[in-house]
Structures are given as structure tokens and as C-alpha cells.
């Protein structure tokens, strides 16, 4: 007789697998309809009805394979989706077809396949919860199937091991998940096929994926700004100059290598007044980019690096991605300087380049920017104003219809998007009316920490804006309207936070996250943010000392505690006596009686009278049923001290 729990678990697993596919929302209801039979199948299975004919099942399976072909080639036109349909039908078929006790194993593997497909076609958070259920149920069923196979399922209480093993396996799964090396190490959010994006700084601006973009409040940097704080804050990172219709990239490949001059790097090719520069002390968290951030144009940088790189567009780049927190001081000018005309003209073409198919955009730009005779500054302002006023900000974007570019979809259809859409549109419109322009990516704003009087910049602050070459200077324009102040309840926020965690740490878990975790656990010195004047730094020695003390304490509490737990005073004292004798070389084991221990002690040079007295006290208390009062305990302690210290001194 098959155990009901085993059957229920099998049913749960099959339904879990199917549910994971259904909640992905990509399936065709028509093809899933036969799958409804699964409920009947498991109802029959659980109530002990006999399986239906093998021939019928096999015949239906063959039919389903033909349906698969039809589905994949004609209806869904997506093999994965068709496969998903098929697995659901197969699960339903199998529910009528349990002959052998280990037949459910096929169900498990089918469910596994379903989960893999689900993870490929949809990655909503519901799939995540299904996953967790699956891991538990899968392991549980494997344990139960063991007892099934041994035929002891009705005689052995397996619930406890089943539960414990499931939990352990879950923990192990997490450990493996975070520790398996990710060969395709990359920026999280750019996982193949995942389509998930969160806001944040990435080396490029890209319009190839759509859907929700999620907030991320990971801290990027903390900045202390000397003297006054300018408003608004635009932390420039790098510039992007070329758009191919989908992606903005930086084409200034050749980088200039700059050596340190007593820790100072000077980048300005023009004169500057040091007094006018704004000094910022930046603590940069380990990021997936080599770019250095600063307000405005960086003129001088002070850091511990030996060398830095700078490209022609003024982006400053570290030799490699920093693995640790990296701190530097930047002196930068908020006022753009005037460029050398000849030199700029050499790159002018780059800043005017447009991809093909921009006719509608060009038309719109001309329409919005007014009279061609207007000064470029005003035309640019008109464009900026157009985007600011007529468009809405949203982190949700939809896929454009076939044949429509993402830019056109934004400008003419949806009129909603986020900073990259605005910046990109404006830059393209500027170019189409002949004003050289480029996109700048970095961060804007930040949260002022009143306690520390510094600015915290998070990934949520990632931003892109536009710079246009007007009258020999790169002028900044920010066409992105403010996000509508979202009114969210605490529940929504909590939900959003969970979503964020799921995407950030499960779906988007990457090699760099692994490295970050390793760093967290292995960093010998816990380095606090360093600010000049206040230096919080722990020496490794102290940390190690504290750790050592902690482990000793834990050892004493748990290991020794377990050993002596529940023992009375006299037993503990006797155990101390015994282990001392043992260490003196006495042949004493757990099976030595007190007087044998005493004999061994005497044989090893302990005073027989005092040791005998101690053993007598112990025996009276332990076996004689007369507990020791505090005075006798002191006697015991005194005896122990005398036995083992004076005795040794005399010799």
C-alpha cells in the first residue's frame, strides 16, 4: 500500500511544476486545457483508483507529440512555449498512469523540466516562491521515495528526517547557489535572456529590453563636499557619443595614461584657478565600472593609485575595477571650460552622427526647436522644455511594435520613459538640428546625511543627461521630468522591497556579488568610512583578539557546557580532578571508578591524604546523597588547589 503522504507529495510536486509554468503568464490557455485532467488524475490516484490502460496513455502521448509539433511550428512559434504546453499535458497523463512505486520519480523529473522552462520564459516573483516550495517538496519526496523503495514507509516514522533533510538541503542549495562560479560573469541585470533591469550605472545606454525597471537603493558612494554644496548635484561618470539605433556607446577608445605626481593627477589642459574648484572627498563602493565620478569637470584628482587613464571626452578611468572601497579626492570645476576649436572640430562629426531611420525624429526636432535662426542655446532650451513638459516619467516601458524603433515609440506613441529615453531623444534631436551633443551617464542628486554631513549616492540616483556643444563649451541639459511623487502604502513598499531583494540577489546574482560576499567575510580589517580628521580604523590584531575571545567563549559555553551540563558541583569538581590526573599521566578512562582514579593520582605523586579526603567528600556528596554546602565546596576548592599545586612545588 502506498503511503498517502507520498502520493500527496507527488501530486503537490506535479502541481507545483505546472503552476510555475502557468504563473509565468506566457502560455496559451487552449493548449493548457487538456492539463486540467490532472486534477481528475490525482483525485483518482489519491483515492486509490486503478491506473488507466497503458495503451491509452501511450496513444495520447503520441498524439500530444504531434500537437507539440503543430504548436511549435504554427501556433506559438516558440519551441519553449510549446514544450511547456506539452509538459503540462504529460503531467496530466502521468497522473492516470502510476503502476510501480517509483513511477513518481518521472513526475519529479518532469516537474524539474517544467521549472527550468519556467525560469526561461518568465521570471516573475511567483516563480520564485514556487521554486522554494519545489526545493522543499522535491527533497521531501526523494526521502519518502527511499522509504517507499525499502518498503518500510508504513513502519517508520520518517517525518522528522524528511523535514530535517529538506531544510538542510535547502540551506545547502543556497550555499551552492551563491558559491557556484558564474562563468558568464557580467553586470547583474544583463543576464542572458533575463530581460530584467534595475536602475543603476552601466557602461552604456541600451534600448534593447523592455519591461519594468526596478529601484535599487544600494549605496554607490559617499561624498563629502568641501565648503558649500552646489545644487543640483550631477556626478559625471562617462560620456557616450555614438548611437546605433539601439545602444549608445563611447567610441573614444584611445586612452591617455596619466602618471601620479606625488599622489596628484592633473587632467586640465587649460588654466584653472584652484580656488574656484570644488573639492570632494569620494568613497566609492566597489562597482562594476572603472569610471571615476565627480561633480562637473574633474581638473585634479588625488588618490593612492599609481596611474589613471583619461579619454579624450574627459572620462577618467581606473586601471581596473576596484575590488575594495576606493577613496579619492577630486577638485573639479562646475563651469565648463572653453574648448580649443580646432581640436574639437576634429571630433565634431562624431557628435553629429545619427543612425539611419531618424527622419521622423528630425521632423519633430525641427518642429519643436522653432526658427532655425534662433541661437543654438535657445533652440536647445526649447527641445529640453518640450521633453520636460510634454512627456511623463516612468520606469515601465513597453516593447515597441514591429518596425518601430524604441526612440520613435517613446517620442510618438507612449511619451513616457525614464532618463535614458529623455536624454537619448534630446541628444538625437539636437544632432538632427545640427548641434553637436552627447549623453552623459552618472548620478544625480543624493541624500544628505545630516549626521555625517555628507552625501549618500545610491544606484537609484543613476541618471543620464545631455551635453551640447554651444559656443565652444559643453553645456548641460537635463530633459528628464521629475518622477511623479509616488504614493505607496507601507505594504506596497514592503512588497517592492521583497521584489527588489529577489531580483537583486537571486535572479541577478553574479560573479561580482560572489566576490563581494567573499570580501565581506574575509576582509581582515573592518574599514569604516574614512573622513579626514575622524579616522575609524580597527587594527586586525584587535579584531582577531575579539574573534579569538568569542570563539573561546562559545567553546566554553557550548562544548564544555554540553559536557558538564546538568552536572552537580561535586561532579564537576571530580571531573576536574580526574582530568588533572589524566594530564599528569595517570591511566584514567571513563570507566575508572573514583578510588582507581585516586590510586592513579597517588601513583603520580599526589598527596594521598588530601586526594583521599577530596574523593571522600566527592563520594559523600555524589553517592551519599548529602550535597556539599558552601563551606565544603570551599574545602573542595582548597583541596584541589593544594593537591595540584603544592604537591608539585614540593617535588
Amino acid at each position, binding site marked *: 500500500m502506498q503511503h498517502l503522504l507520498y502520493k500527496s507529495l507527488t501530486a503537490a510536486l506535479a502541481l507545483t511544476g505546472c503552476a510555475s509554468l502557468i504563473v509565468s503568464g506566457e502560455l496559451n490557455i487552449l493548449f493548457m486545457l487538456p492539463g486540467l485532467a490532472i486534477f481528475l488524475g490525482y483525485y483518482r490516484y489519491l483515492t486509490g483508483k486503478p491506473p488507466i490502460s497503458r495503451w491509452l496513455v501511450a496513444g495520447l502521448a503520441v498524439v500530444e507529440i504531434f500537437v507539440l509539433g503543430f504548436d511549435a511550428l504554427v501556433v506559438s512559434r516558440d519551441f519553449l512555449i510549446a514544450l511547456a504546453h506539452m509538459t503540462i499535458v504529460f503531467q496530466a497523463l502521468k497522473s492516470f498512469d502510476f503502476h510501480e512505486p*517509483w513511477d513518481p520519480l518521472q513526475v519529479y523529473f518532469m516537474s524539474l523540466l517544467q521549472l527550468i522552462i519556467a525560469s526561461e520564459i518568465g521570471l516573475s516573483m511567483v516563480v520564485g516562491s514556487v521554486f522554494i516550495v519545489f526545493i522543499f517538496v522535491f527533497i521531501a519526496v526523494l526521502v519518502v521515495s527511499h522509504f517507499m523503495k525499502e518498503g518500510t514507509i508504513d513502519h517508520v516514522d520518517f517525518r522528522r528526517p524528511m523535514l530535517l533533510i529538506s531544510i538542510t538541503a535547502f540551506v545547502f542549495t543556497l550555499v551552492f547557489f551563491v558559491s557556484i562560479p558564474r562563468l558568464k560573469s557580467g553586470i547583474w541585470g544583463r543576464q542572458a535572456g533575463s530581460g530584467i533591469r534595475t536602475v543603476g550605472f552601466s557602461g552604456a545606454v541600451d534600448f534593447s529590453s523592455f519591461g519594468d525597471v526596478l529601484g535599487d537603493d544600494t549605496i554607490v558612494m559617499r561624498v563629502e563636499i568641501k565648503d558649500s554644496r552646489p545644487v543640483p548635484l550631477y556626478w559625471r561618470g562617462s560620456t557616450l557619443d555614438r548611437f546605433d539605433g539601439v545602444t549608445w556607446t563611447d567610441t573614444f577608445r584611445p586612452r591617455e595614461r596619466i602618471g601620479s605626481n606625488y599622489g596628484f593627477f592633473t587632467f586640465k589642459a587649460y588654466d584653472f584657478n584652484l580656488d574656484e574648484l570644488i573639492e570632494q572627498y569620494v568613497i566609492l563602493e566597489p562597482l562594476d565600472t572603472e569610471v571615476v565620478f565627480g561633480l562637473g569637470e574633474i581638473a585634479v584628482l588625488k588618490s593612492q593609485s599609481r596611474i589613471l587613464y583619461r579619454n579624450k571626452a574627459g572620462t577618467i578611468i581606473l586601471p581596473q575595477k576596484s575590488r575594495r572601497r576606493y577613496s579619492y579626492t577630486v577638485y573639479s570645476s562646475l563651469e565648463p571650460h572653453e574648448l580649443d576649436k580646432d581640436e574639437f572640430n576634429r571630433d565634431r562629426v562624431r557628435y553629429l552622427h545619427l543612425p539611419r531611420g531618424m527622419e521622423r525624429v528630425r521632423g519633430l526636432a525641427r518642429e519643436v526647436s522653432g526658427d532655425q535662426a534662433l541661437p543654438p542655446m535657445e533652440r536647445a532650451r526649447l527641445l529640453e522644455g518640450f521633453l520636460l513638459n510634454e512627456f511623463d516619467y516612468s520606469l515601465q516601458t513597453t516593447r515597441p511594435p514591429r518596425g518601430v524603433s524604441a526612440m520613435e515609440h517613446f517620442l510618438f506613441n507612449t511619451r513616457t520613459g525614464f532618463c535614458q529615453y529623455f536624454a537619448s531623444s534630446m541628444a538625437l534631436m539636437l544632432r538632427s538640428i545640427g548641434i553637436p551633443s552627447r549623453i552623459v551617464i552618472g548620478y544625480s542628486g543624493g541624500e544628505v546625511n545630516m549626521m555625517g554631513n555628507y552625501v549618500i549616492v545610491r544606484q537609484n540616483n543613476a541618471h543620464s543627461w545631455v551635453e551640447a556643444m554651444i559656443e565652444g563649451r559643453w553645456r548641460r541639459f537635463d530633459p528628464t521630468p521629475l518622477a511623479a511623487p509616488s504614493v505607496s502604502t507601507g505594504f506596497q513598499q514592503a512588497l517592492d522591497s521583497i521584489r527588489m531583494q529577489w531580483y537583486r540577489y537571486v535572479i541577478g546574482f553574479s560573479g561580482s556579488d560572489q566576490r563581494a560576499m567573499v570580501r565581506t567575510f574575509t576582509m581582515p580589517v573592518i574599514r569604516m568610512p574614512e573622513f579626514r580628521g575622524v579616522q575609524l580604523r580597527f587594527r586586525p590584531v584587535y579584531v582577531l583578539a575579539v574573534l579569538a575571545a568569542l570563539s573561546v567563549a562559545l567553546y566554553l559555553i557550548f562544548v564544555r557546557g554540553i559536557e558538564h551540563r546538568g552536572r552537580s558541583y561535586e561532579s564537576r569538581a571530580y571531573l576536574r580532578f580526574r582530568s588533572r590526573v589524566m594530564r599528569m599521566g595517570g591511566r584514567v578512562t571513563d570507566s575508572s571508578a573514583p578510588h582507581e582514579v585516586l590510586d592513579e593520582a597517588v601513583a603520580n605523586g599526589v598527596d594521598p591524604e588530601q586526594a583521599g579526603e577530596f574523593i571522600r567528600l566527592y563520594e559523600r556528596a555524589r553517592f551519599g546523597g548529602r550535597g556539599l554546602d558552601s563551606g565544603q565546596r570551599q574545602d573542595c576548592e582548597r583541596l584541589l588547589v593544594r593537591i595540584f599545586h603544592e604537591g608539585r612545588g614540593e617535588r
Partner: protein
Amino acid sequence: MRPTREGARFLLATGLIGLAAMNTGNNLIYIIFGMLLSVLVLSYALLRTNLSGLLLKVEAERPVFAGQKAYFRITVRNRKKRFTSYSLRIRFPKGLLAEERTGFIPVVAPGSSETSEVELVFRRRGSFRYGDFVVESSFPFIFFYRRVTVQVEGEVVVYPRIRELELDALRRGASGERTTNRPGRSDDLLVIREFRCGDDMKHINWKASARSESLMVKEFTEHESRMITLVLDNSSPAEEFAFERGVSFAASVAWKLGLEGFLVRLAMCGAEVSFGTGLEHVYRVLDALADAEDGSSEACPGVDDVEEGEGMVVVILKNELSPMAAIAAGEGTVVVNAASAL
């Protein structure tokens, strides 16, 4: 740790999913991969834990006779403090038996022991060292199993084959017909004499007392000859068949009559068991017979001084030419020719 048939498939699936994870970089596939790996790791760890700290004890339920069903109790004691051991299959050593036998213990809680009973048949008598038992388990899953070889100390003593024999002649010879002239408690009247201090009241013969006007008691002969000495001829090697039949005969007599309360003594070259009663004594005789070897070169003290008056002596000869035929001359001695008499 070795994979079962399902385990091989499982390993294959793990490998494929691992490849898929690496290839797509999809983190959910990594989770599944991680889960499969954790199944592997748990299999390894739990297979080890499950089979560690176990104490195996094998006992045969006495007596074990050749050619009869014997019952073995396999006791597994779990000395671990926390972990319960599940699904233990215990395989008997290959050399011990002709056929494969296993015992199965579904669960042993920490600090306790469980017993499984296995039934088997030995073909030959003798002492068998237990040797290497194999303990096997596939807990917690069905994918892998592990085997541990356990050297079990001790031995099982298989007693000679017991045959259905017609023993009435021996029984009578040893008790009924031949009595001594010593007073005792058999049913045979020896003499009627005058009452003496210490006589049992039961034995007063009132009829005789009335006649002689003094108390007369009946005195019976002693039963003391419910004693049998089995002399097994193992002095010089002969055909195995004849010797085995002799051993079997001796064992059958000792077993049957020993249980009926006869005092049994065994004498052969190299071993001697003095008179005694009770089950333990019979076992002692059978122990000696189980290990009896033909052609013993050792001294034969018990055989040489079979005394008169110590009950019946049964001499079991392999053939007429045996040197032991010489001692078979005394009164109250029965000679059995092992090869022909059975």
C-alpha cells in the same frame, strides 16, 4: 558511495543541468543545479553518518544443528548520540553460507538497538567464524548506496545432524534392565529390611511390618545407571562418511537422552566431557562433537579409563578394524558400527 540505476540517471541529469546553467547563466537553473548538488552532498554525508557508530552483533539462536533451520538474530546498536540510522541491510559473509542471506533493519534510534531475525540452514557441522558482514544502506535517497564491511567476532557452532534413531534399546540398557546392588530409588525391589533411622516413611511396607511386628521397609535398587558414556572412535582416519555418521549418532544420542535426564559423558581422543545433566551440559557435549576431528593424534584419556559401574558405555566405531574395538569388551558395553548400524 556508489550510484544505483536511478542514481546514474540522476548524475546525468545533474551534469546536464549544470551545463545548462553555465551556458545560459540563468540563475534559476543555477538554483536547480545547486539543489541537485545539495542532494549529492547530503547523500554523501548522510550515507556516511547513517552507517557510522553502529555496532553489529550476530547471534545464532541455540541450538544450531546441521541440516535444520537455524535462526540468526542480527542486532544493530546505534551508538550515535543524535542521528537515527535508517534502512540497514546486513549481508551475511559469502563463505558462511551457500546461499545469499540478508537481514533488514528499518530504523535504529540513537542509543538503542534493533534486531532482525534471519533463517538459514547449515549443511555441515563445525565451528564457523563469522567474518565479514556487509552493512548496506541507501538512506536518505534512492540514488546512492554505501557498503561497510564489518568484521564480526565470534563464531557459530553448528552441531552434528540429528537423526531419528530407535533408542529404546539404549534407554533400557542404560536404566531398566541393568541395575546395581546398591540401594536406590528405582522401581525394582532389592530387599525388605528392618527400619533404620533416616529411612523414608514412604517405603515402609505395612504388610511386612504387621507380619514381623517390627517396622519393615522396602529397599529398591538405584537408578544410577541412567548414565551413558559415549566413546567416539576418532583415533585413526577413516572414510569421512563413516566418521560423520558416527558423530551424528553420538550427537543424536546425547541430545535425545540428555534431554530425558540421562547423565551423559563423552570420551574421544583429544576431548572429554564428564558426566552431567541439564541443557548446558548437553550443549557442552554437542560443542565437542561439533568440532570433533577424525584421526586425532592427541591422547585419549577419557577413552582409556572407561570405568566399570559408571553406567552404560556406547562405543561408536567406524569399522571393525578400529583399535578401539579392544575396549568394547566390558560388561554393559554396546558397540555401534557407525558405517552399518545407522
